[in-house]
């Protein structure tokens, strides 16, 4: 079997400095409602520990998927790396520098696309380029926008507005917008979660194609085992929340460029899939049991 277990990989990496993103003992606690008034009115709630002691290294030019039962703090983890949320304790660094706020070195793709409805397809991408590179000449800016519209295969839809295009096309715009600012890292929060199965598969192939071209470090949250196996070099499996941890990190050995059918024929495919299914089943059952217990 080609499985290599996370804890060993992690210990090996800990002393190297090759990691682009590095999380050390990261916890996230959402403070509950406290205070005299809330106690009297019975509205007081206790603190919620979303993440506990997360240690993670992500190397340059790797594609990493995060998978775990719903409500396990995957999005929280991604938002911490993206700088939209801050860790309660521990350190989060990128190239050795602490991450304190969002920035254009990290491109974000959102689950619900987050396109500005009053801007055209081109306008949405141009807004990002203009914001990050205000000094770019108009010609250069046009070229960057056009290039990325081509990259995601949206030529011809430039002047359409988001409500006029399909969900799959919207997410292409979202991906183009994130890539157009030339970030070091691409962060994707369930980018295909709102799409139907066919469109989803189609866009996965597109992501694979684009990734082979750009080879940027990418972190993607997903619920889909097949998606994770098709796209990623490493798969981070998280335990259920509260106090979610990293349970295990799988290395995915399939050669690149990848192709859906070849990947499924690889001798390690079924083993990895089984492992992930077991994990997700176990954690999801634990979530259900915890709910019943309450």
């Amino acid at each position, binding site marked *: 079997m080609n499985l290599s277990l996370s804890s060993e990989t992690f210990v090996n990496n800990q002393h190297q400095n090759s990691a682009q993103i590095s999380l050390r003992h990261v916890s996230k606690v959402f403070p509950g409602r406290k205070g005299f008034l809330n106690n009297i009115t019975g509205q007081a709630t206790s603190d919620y520990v979303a993440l506990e002691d997360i240690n993670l290294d992500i190397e340059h030019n790797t594609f990493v998927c995060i998978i775990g039962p719903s409500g396990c703090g995957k999005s929280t983890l991604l938002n911490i790396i993206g700088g939209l949320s801050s860790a309660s304790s521990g350190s989060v660094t990128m190239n050795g520098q602490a991450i304190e706020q*969002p920035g254009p070195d990290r491109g974000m793709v959102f689950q619900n696309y*987050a396109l500005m409805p009053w801007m055209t397809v081109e306008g949405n991408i141009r807004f990002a380029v203009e914001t990050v590179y205000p000094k770019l000449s108009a010609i250069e800016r046009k070229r960057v926008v056009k290039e990325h519209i081509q990259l995601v295969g949206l030529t011809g839809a430039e002047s359409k507005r988001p409500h006029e295009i399909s969900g799959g096309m919207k997410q292409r715009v979202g991906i183009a917008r994130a890539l157009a600012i030339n970030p070091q890292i691409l962060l994707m929060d369930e980018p295909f979660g709102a799409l139907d199965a066919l469109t989803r598969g189609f866009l996965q192939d597109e992501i694979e194609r684009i990734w082979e071209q750009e080879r940027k470090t990418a972190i993607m949250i997903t619920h889909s085992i097949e998606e994770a196996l098709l796209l990623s070099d490493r798969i981070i499996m998280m335990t259920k929340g509260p106090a979610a941890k990293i349970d295990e990190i799988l290395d995915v050995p399939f050669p690149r460029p990848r192709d859906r059918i070849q990947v499924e024929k690889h001798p390690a495919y079924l083993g990895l899939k089984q492992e992930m299914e077991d994990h997700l089943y176990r954690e999801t059952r634990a979530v259900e049991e915890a709910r019943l217990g309450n």
Partner: protein
Amino acid sequence: MTVVEKRSIQGKEKPKFVLNENLQALVLFLVSLVIFLLFWELGAKFKLFAKGFPTASLTIQELWYWVTHPFYNNGPNDLGIGWNLLVSLRRVAIGYTIASLIAVPLGILIGIYPVAAKAFNPYFQLLKPVSPLAWLPLGLYLFRDSEVTGIFIIAIASIWPTLINTAFGVAGVSQEYLDVAKTLGASRLRTIFKVIIPAALPNIISGLRISMGISWLVIVAAEMLLGTGLGYFIWNEWNNLYIPNIIVAIFIIGVVGIVLDQIFAYLEKLVSFGKKA
């Protein structure tokens, strides 16, 4: 099941007589209008209403007269209705513009800063339900001028819906858009002008639409006490005890109100981008 069957039977038997909904509504409207006018005409002829109540035909004749002779001038108490309409529209335009120029920027500031929203909310809550006409004596005392008072009343009446809607729209801008701006590292000012204001625009426009409706409601009432304009026209005809002209004025006020409202309905559509306005 029965509904489906009925439909298919109807469809097969007499497809030529099936009107679409809009056409049905038009026919119903015309029929009801004819019945209403007949009832009015006969009722007035047989003195079913108050003594001297004008007939429908007389009123329509008067309407035709006023519409075809809008701009004549025989002194302040005998002005064409076009002049009075222009006076009213000018007052509304000035007062409404002043109110909007205050309400939109202030609403944006209040929407952006939740503390400001909480701090100033008591003013809005207290002043919003006050009838605009209650400000009339205060306005006359402050400005000693009926023209300025009219504008003041319009401004004070139409400021609240725009202000409250703008603040609400700005405060409710989807977190996703703000996250996009944040991850791109957009400056505060750029976020406000490129993201927050466009995102809140549908709310701002509906606020402006409500304010315009209120302005038009209030001006007629205010003008009864002020001296010129459509409101004064009605008041003057009441003093002349000539009822047909009052009904004509009501009709014209309604038509102008529809036009003003439709302008804003069009603007709302323009900024809705797929969402239902």
